[in-house]
């Protein structure tokens, strides 16, 4: 098991305009782009969105290979979406007779449409996680959700939990590795056997890991209190998010994209 050299999330460090954008703006813009993708009512409308994706990817300096990797876990769903739409949608113009089924032109268009929509959704979302470190993302989310405090939504607490989780992932992985080695030294077998045997072998790993995680949680709570932590109230921040010119430009460009998509949809 490769527990060393783990990277958190799938952040791709680089110095680019996209990386430097305010995380709040990035999150909001992602939502706007998702709306644009759903607004696209014909294939022509996907052209500006795809062009936008290409430009942003180039600007972000993220290698295309990394982007495509994000699609991999979804390939089954993609193929299913395409095939099911292709065979089961009704249409008028027959395109190809396969003997057992007739593929219609309208069905093909819809299949391409749905698949493209999915691909774009995934690619834009991975662009956000590739260009934003998890901790910055957490920060952005906290700031965006903080107005919900009025209805008692625990935005600060959520963000704090997420950042503590991020902090402790490497620590707990290290510990899991240590426990695993200790159990292996005493004859435990994690590698062989069928699925059930291997799942059973995990029990002596998980029990000590859980016990220690709870002990850590207790210690950490004590340490946080000793350092005057008393919730989000009256707290100041080291990092203050401030919108800059580039953030406004990004907003304008995205707004333009939505207009283009709507116009292209009407062009037919």
């Amino acid at each position: 098991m490769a527990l060393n050299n783990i990277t958190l999330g799938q952040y791709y460090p680089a110095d680019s305009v996209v990386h430097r954008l305010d995380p709040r703006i990035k999150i909001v813009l992602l939502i706007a782009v998702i709306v644009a993708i759903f607004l696209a009512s014909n294939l022509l409308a996907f052209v500006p969105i795809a062009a936008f994706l290409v430009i942003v990817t180039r600007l972000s300096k993220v290698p295309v290979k990394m982007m495509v990797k994000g699609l991999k876990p979804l390939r089954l769903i993609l193929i299913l979406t395409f095939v099911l739409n292709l065979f089961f949608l009704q249409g008028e113009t027959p395109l190809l007779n396969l003997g057992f089924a007739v593929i219609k032109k309208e069905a093909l268009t819809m299949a391409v449409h749905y698949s493209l929509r999915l691909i774009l959704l995934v690619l834009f979302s991975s662009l956000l996680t590739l260009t934003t470190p998890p901790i910055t993302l957490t920060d952005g989310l906290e700031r965006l959700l903080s107005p919900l405090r009025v209805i008692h939504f625990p935005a600060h607490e959520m963000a704090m939990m997420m950042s503590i989780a991020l902090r402790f992932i490497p620590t707990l992985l290290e510990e899991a590795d240590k426990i695993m080695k200790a159990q292996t030294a005493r004859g435990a077998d994690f590698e062989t056997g069928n699925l059930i045997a291997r799942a059973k072998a995990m029990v002596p790993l998980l029990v000590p890991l859980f016990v220690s995680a709870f002990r850590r949680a207790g210690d950490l709570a004590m340490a946080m209190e000793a350092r005057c932590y008393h919730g989000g109230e009256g707290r100041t921040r080291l990092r203050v998010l401030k919108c800059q010119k580039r953030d406004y430009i990004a907003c304008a460009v995205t707004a333009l994209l939505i207009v283009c998509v709507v116009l292209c949809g009407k062009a037919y």
Partner: protein
Amino acid sequence: MAEPIIAVDHVSFAYEEDGPLAVRDVSLQVEKGSFHAILGQNGSGKSTLAKLINGLYLPTEGTVTVCGMDTKADENTWEIRRRAGMVFQNPDNQLVATVVREDVAFGLENIGIPTEEMPARIEKALTDVGMLKHADKAPHLLSGGQKQRVAIAGVLAMEPEAIIFDESTAMLDPKGRRDVLKAVQRLNKEQGITVLWITHFMEEAVVCDQVHVMHRGQIVMNGTPREIFSDVERIKPYRLDAPPMARLAAQLRAQGMPLKEGILTVDEMAEEVKRLCK
């Protein structure tokens, strides 16, 4: 005598109501700018005492006063914790943020220091413990001693008057232990920060001004390291081992070598042997 910054007055504490007392009728005063050590075996109540001083636990009986403030009063809690910071045993379990710089900022954020003031304070604190060059690293990439120094910086940034170290070197390797102790000694000497050093390592207590020995929840001995360790036999019942040099001196004396009393360090031993050889 300087004014006491920490005053523990006849304090007892039990974890559960009517349960056994973890700390029994302890009194203790730490003067401003001094370096005190509390020595004791596991389960002697020394960690409990540390948490009583910081207001993490409240005494069942007696009073704890920090900078003139009673820990029992709710409105004092945060001011006491800012003025008397605390560094714990496990270096992994007290760092909160994913980057060193932000971890040091954590305390500052909690007490509402304006954002503009933070970078300067953080840099000063990290410089004081010699960790500035690691400011942008993730804590899990640091060694135990380095993590502990980051934890100290986190307390230091809050500009405390005293720092309580609750067995902060117990989980470190010898080098990390030396580095941390050296950093703390420097803070004590150069910045006049009061130190309460809780440990079960005798050799660390040697550098202190005052040593308090705890045994079964009580303070059983008070004095300078020289007074405490000069009598190797007297501290044995508390299951403490005198520093190696004090033990060696006692054995040599038993063999008939006329060594003077109160030898604690290798340097002192070397001096004394040199003197005898003349």
